């Protein structure tokens, strides 16, 4: 009898496992359920620090803002880097300096209140009020007297180049001609913010108010905030008051803050995400080789470079810097180490900025010339060159690239470089205090114009951190801001970039690409050099 009892238990156990297996494997994945509900599930890196567009400065926030807010000009549905009507229905410019925007007559905040030119005035005043401490306040500096107001040189905001001509007409006056303004104002630092919602919960310059909480938040984008569970999910739903609500195809988007790229990839294959923000670098070659239908690789307006501390010997010598720049085999780095479709940088400004811009192709691999320059600088065959370090922030990818460059400099120039890694905060501080020799540095363009890459190298610019400066360079940049003729302006910038690359206070290494995974049912989420997303054009077609 005992064996019968045991057999019975055994059969029951096997049966329940089989039943459990059947039930669990036949439940719909989150993606299947979301497809039916018309909700996009998007991986979004780390938890957003804030939903106030005037306090944010990170990529996770950037991705969310395109759903919640809309600037005067919006990303075009068929080409996110192009210009389409946003909060403004139309716009004209006088000499690229005085811009007049006609706002959407039907434009409303998500609570139904109309959007007027005064909302933009309020937003720009808030952004430029020093007490708010907005990270991106300097994005508004092309506006006449914006910098002066922000730094306290003028106290009267009415002197700043922004005016309300009538409730539906906004006029922005710039310091000089800027043909790239439409691209620039698609950045969230130029977005309107709702005065009535902000001041319901505090003062204009309060950094801690609760106006961005789900119940309180008021926005003007195609979607509005539905829920925000910290570190878990942020959900947006259709905004019925959006002026172009009929075009919006999705019913909502859920942004998932997944900080680990390995976890994000796992979640994607587990059917929890339609699209990832990024993917493990080490897996990219395998996806490329297998021609996976999920794998996407888009160019980005972003450059990876090494900068030199020109206040330290021997890096104060342009010959040394040029020699170092010429001894880096960029082609080999992108082909053998990065292997994710990046392009070797021949100049600083990545391709695609403006078709008319002539990028000076100066950066190349020429070890013979590099050796000659180094000898001319007083270090024949690398003799007597002091040991130095390449400073990186802790990351496997930065380390392997630094080690490759280290080997190239050793092989071609016979000079001793070490690799020094520091934690993020320390790494930033070292560069700010000029306590480094060579440091890795990345720069992401904010708008489609070479000036987004070139202005930071002016003498004493807060982002320069190399100690390098050139009178002629500063002059050219300054002239470019005054030049009304578009072709001549680009010519001036190209000339400036040539000086910069010849003097080589920084050595561009490669131009980034954005590698991510996306399911085939997602339509209309198009590549963008600036990572702009036109969410109203996105739909799910399983």
């Amino acid at each position: 009898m005992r064996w019968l009892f045991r057999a019975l238990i055994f059969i029951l156990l096997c049966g329940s496992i089989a039943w459990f297996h059947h039930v669990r494997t036949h439940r719909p994945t989150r993606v299947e359920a979301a497809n039916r509900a018309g909700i996009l599930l998007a991986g979004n890196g780390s938890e957003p620090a804030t939903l106030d567009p005037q306090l944010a400065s990170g990529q996770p926030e950037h991705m969310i803002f395109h759903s919640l807010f809309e600037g005067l000009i919006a990303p075009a549905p068929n080409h996110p880097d192009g210009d389409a009507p946003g909060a403004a229905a139309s716009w004209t410019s006088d000499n690229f300096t005085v811009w007049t925007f006609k706002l959407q007559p039907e434009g409303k905040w998500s609570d139904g209140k109309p959007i007027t030119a005064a909302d933009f005035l309020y937003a720009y005043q808030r952004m430029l009020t020093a007490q708010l401490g907005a990270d991106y306040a300097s994005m508004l500096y092309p506006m006449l007297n914006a910098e002066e107001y922000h730094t306290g040189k003028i106290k009267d905001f009415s002197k700043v180049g922004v005016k309300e001509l009538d409730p539906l007409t906004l006029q922005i006056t710039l310091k000089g001609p800027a043909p790239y303004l439409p691209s620039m104002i698609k950045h969230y630092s130029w977005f309107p913010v709702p005065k009535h919602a902000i001041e319901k919960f505090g003062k204009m310059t309060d950094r801690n108010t609760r106006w961005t909480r789900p119940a309180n938040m008021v926005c003007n984008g195609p979607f509005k905030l539905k829920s925000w569970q910290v570190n878990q999910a942020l959900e947006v739903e259709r905004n019925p008051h959006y002026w172009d609500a009929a075009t919006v195809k999705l019913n909502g988007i859920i942004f998932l803050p997944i900080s680990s790229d390995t976890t994000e990839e796992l979640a994607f294959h587990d059917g929890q995400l339609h699209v990832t923000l990024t993917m493990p670098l080490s897996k990219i070659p395998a996806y490329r080789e297998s021609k996976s239908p999920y794998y996407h690789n888009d160019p980005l307006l972003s450059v990876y470079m090494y900068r030199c501390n020109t206040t330290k010997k021997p890096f104060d010598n342009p010959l040394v810097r040029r020699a170092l720049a010429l001894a880096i085999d960029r082609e080999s780095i992108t082909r053998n180490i990065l292997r994710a479709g990046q392009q070797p940088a021949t100049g600083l400004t990545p391709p695609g900025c403006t078709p008319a811009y002539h990028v000076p192709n100066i950066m190349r691999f020429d070890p013979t010339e590099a050796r000659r320059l180094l000898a001319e600088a007083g270090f024949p065959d690398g003799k007597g060159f002091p040991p130095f370090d390449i400073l990186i922030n802790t990351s496997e990818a930065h380390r392997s690239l630094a080690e490759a460059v280290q080997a190239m400099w050793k092989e071609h120039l016979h000079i001793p470089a070490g690799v020094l890694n520091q934690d993020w905060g320390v790494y930033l501080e070292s560069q700010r205090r000029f306590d480094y020799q060579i440091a890795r540095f990345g720069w992401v363009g904010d708008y489609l114009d070479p000036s987004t890459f070139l202005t930071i190298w002016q003498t004493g610019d807060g982002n320069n951190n190399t100690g390098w400066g050139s009178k002629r360079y500063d002059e050219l940049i300054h002239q470019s801001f005054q030049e009304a003729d578009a072709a001549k302006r680009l010519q001036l910038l190209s000339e400036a970039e040539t000086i910069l690359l010849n003097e080589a206070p920084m050595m561009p290494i490669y131009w980034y690409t954005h590698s991510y995974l996306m399911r085939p049912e997602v339509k209309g989420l198009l590549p963008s050099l600036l990572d702009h997303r036109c969410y109203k054009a996105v739909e799910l077609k399983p």
Partner: protein
Amino acid sequence: MIRFIVSRIVQGIIVIFAVITITFALSKMVPGGAVRNERNITEEARKAQEEYYGLNKPWIVQLGLQFKHYATLDLPESYHYKGRGVDEIIASGFPVSAAVGGAALLIALAIGVPLGAYAALRPNTFEDRSSTLAATLGICTPSMVLGPLIALLFGLKLRWFNASGWFDASDWVLPALTLGVIYSAYIARLTRGSLRETLAQEFIRTARAKGASEGAVVFLHAMKLACLPVLNYLGPAAAGLLTGSFIVETVFQLPGLGQFFIAAATNGDHQLTIAISTFYAALIVTFNLLVDILQAALNPRIRLQA
């Protein structure tokens, strides 16, 4: 007993304020400061932010303010997550960490104690060696290896559970299993060692001589004493489990406290670092006190003295 508890509570409060002081001092020594961006921000913005968070005040005033915050339980705001109080962040992360940690603790005990006892009762046999081997393997396997393996097997291959996320009612299973397996290994080793030692003691021989059954000897007499080291270990282990494991929370994408703790360090969010450290310290103090009281209840030879 009451005097003991009161004096331990007072000691605990001193410990907590010492932790606040030390983490505050460390945060002041960290290079980089609280305002850290790759892009340079204007001097005006930097000044405004430092002023807003009181970072421009003398450090002794800042420390005084910290004490005031914690003494009055009016906790400060996070530097990074703008407009969120650190208490709000702890309140959102702790329940998740505690749910997973609590389940992991039960799994650890459910696997560890029987495994250890089984090995102790059959010393130097095949069963003993294989369970010791399993325990050693468990101790040696880091959660960053075991977690993805479990996610791959039960998530992606068998599709029994979601590989990550915190949405379904069953999402606690895989992370709790990962943590539980690792902790059970420690518990099994502790139980085995301590039970073997206890079984060799004279009062066990007396119990056997009185004719008590083997079951009664092991479970009524020996286990009571043998579980003391396990209990000792469980105090800090429980505090650690309940406040979350960064690695397991990252692998399984749980919105727990562990992820916030590490993010706070990398973001330079010192307010949050101090808050979570203090919370962790408070939990350890509480659990140690509970363990002391439980031990006294289990072992009449221990007398609590203030």
